[in-house]
């Protein structure tokens, strides 16, 4: 699903150049649930941004579902993001003047799906994350866990190939974190490929594979015994 070869990325700040990613080789097969770990500054967010086409690598190749992601202009990048990827952010990034339902419908809006169908499909995803009764609520009327679940529903709405989660539990307490992880595991069980960036060990162990980043290189990439979040809730 994801094939990355010899990926380099550096940021220029004035005269100094910061080499963040120093040759990443990394493959993800369909249906995997991978966590990317590393201390801050290890380059995990940069990697995720490149995977998410929000940022572009300096050198190296990136294939997503056998489509080379290279030299995209903003318009095509936007279309690919919409078609291939679903984003889950640490700070939820819901649009605060839109109801939960409208938030979930956003990716479909940019796909050009008609309003009626859009709302039907969004409603189905809200039901899936167990928030159907809150469909008409604004984000600030929801708890953190609920917000993240709306964000997950939104990420799923466009039926993407890969879900990218950037510290999905970073702003949540332990109990809610496990609830969210339970949801993510459930989605993965249905066959969706998911990448989770985290720095929490317990969250990482709820995935099937842990990739450890340090100073811009992968120092460890191993499959682990998945801990079911349900057991901890």
């Amino acid at each position, binding site marked *: 699903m994801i094939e990355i070869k010899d990926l380099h990325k550096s940021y220029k700040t004035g005269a100094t150049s910061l080499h963040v990613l120093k040759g990443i080789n990394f493959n993800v097969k369909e249906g995997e649930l991978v966590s990317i770990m590393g201390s801050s500054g290890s380059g995990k967010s940069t990697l995720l941004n490149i995977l998410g086409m929000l940022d572009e690598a300096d050198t190296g190749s990136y294939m997503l579902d056998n489509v080379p992601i290279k030299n995209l202009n903003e318009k095509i990048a936007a279309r690919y993001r919409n078609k291939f990827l679903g984003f889950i952010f640490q700070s939820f*990034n819901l649009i605060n003047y839109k109801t939960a339902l409208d938030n979930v419908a956003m990716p479909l809006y940019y796909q050009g799906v008609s309003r009626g169908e859009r709302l039907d499909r969004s409603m189905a995803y809200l039901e899936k994350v167990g928030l159907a009764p809150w469909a008409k609520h604004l984000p600030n009327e929801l708890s953190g866990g609920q917000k993240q679940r709306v964000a997950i529903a939104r990420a799923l709405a466009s039926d993407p190939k890969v879900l990218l989660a950037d510290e999905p539990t970073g702003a949540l307490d332990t109990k809610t974190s496990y609830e969210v992880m339970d949801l993510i595991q459930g989605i993965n069980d249905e066959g969706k490929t998911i990448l989770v960036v985290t720095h929490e060990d317990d969250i990482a162990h709820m995935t099937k594979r842990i990739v450890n980043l340090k100073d811009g290189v992968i120092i460890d990439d191993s499959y682990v015994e998945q801990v079911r979040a349900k057991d901890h809730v």
Partner: protein
Amino acid sequence: MFSRDKWNEIIESLSSNWFRTILTAFGVLWGIFILVILLAAGKGLENGVKQGFGGMATNSMFMWTQTVAKPYKGLPKGRRYNFKTKDVQAIKDNVPGLQYVSPRNQLGGFGGTNNVVRGLKSGAFNVYGDYPEIINQQPMDITSGRFLNYNDLNERRKVAVIGEGVKTTMYENDEEVLGSYIKVNGVNFQVIGTYKKKSTGGGNSEEDQKEIYVPFTSFSQAFNMGDIVGWMAITANDNNSITALKSSIFDVIKENHTIHPEDDRAIGNFDLFEEYTKISGLFTALNFVAYFVGILVLLSGVIGICNIMLIVVKERTNEIGVRRALGATPWSIRGQILLESIFLTIISGMAGIILATLVLWLVNYALAAQDSSEMMFINPSVDLVTVIIALLILVISGLLAGLIPAQNAIRIKPVDALRTE
């Protein structure tokens, strides 16, 4: 482009901060309000001053004889001459593009001795010998009876149309005017009508109501004028300006009266059209000033919108990042900001136009309550074309106001936009 969702988005984002939206809108509202009011005021003044011409055919000139200033073909300078009735025909035949050529004669004058008598009453009035066309050149309202017609001219009837001023001097309040007789320099004329002249805005409007009009032919016969014509009022048709035709008219007269072709002083004239053009020019300038000032005021409103849109974009940087992560193309973001800006501009502009219209309506309402004949300010209004131009200016300025913020919104990379909290 105009889907329901787009509109929802616009309304949502504009209504998220009502106070700010309204303040911003007020800038544009004020600008367009000033523009419309200024244009309307200019129009009102123009209407008022043009009414001062009393609805006179403005494409007209008046022409009279003076003394000849150059000797010619054995005739000396300083010679006097008179227009003749055959000159009228000659002008009509030789100068194309004229609408009316009215020969006129006159008796009496301002401050003259009493020349009109009726029973025991007498008065001093201007008495004119005229053709029926004169009513088209110097309009007057016939308040009773009728004006002169060609039967009166051809049969040399001794009939007269008198002004309201004459009526008040020569008649008791309840006396029947039509059919009665007045004696002008000893000759009886039957009154067939009364008139009231439209205002000329000048100081002699009182005097204007104290005139007596009789047929030109009867005048010549009754007062021994022969074929002499005192002066002429000449109007060109709508396709020609009298100023352009003037010299060819003079040429005809010079030819007929053996006057040196380069003698500019033999014929006196007053060119109403030239005066009118000058005043029209003044109003063109006034209109220009109105547009200039109005658009500048509007501009400050537009800059306000531009500013606010910049702030809005700044505030929504994170949201824009989210949208782009979810698949919004740069154009959909740009279009969103532009539409918001145009929408805000047009809505507030419309409100400004409506407000201005309301004010104009009130002003007109107040003006209508008074007698407008002596006012210098009548019916301030703007025509539809002006309103459409104003709207067009609004759309363009809304677009311009949105352009910079929209570009700003795009310039930030989605990854940076997402990082903003």
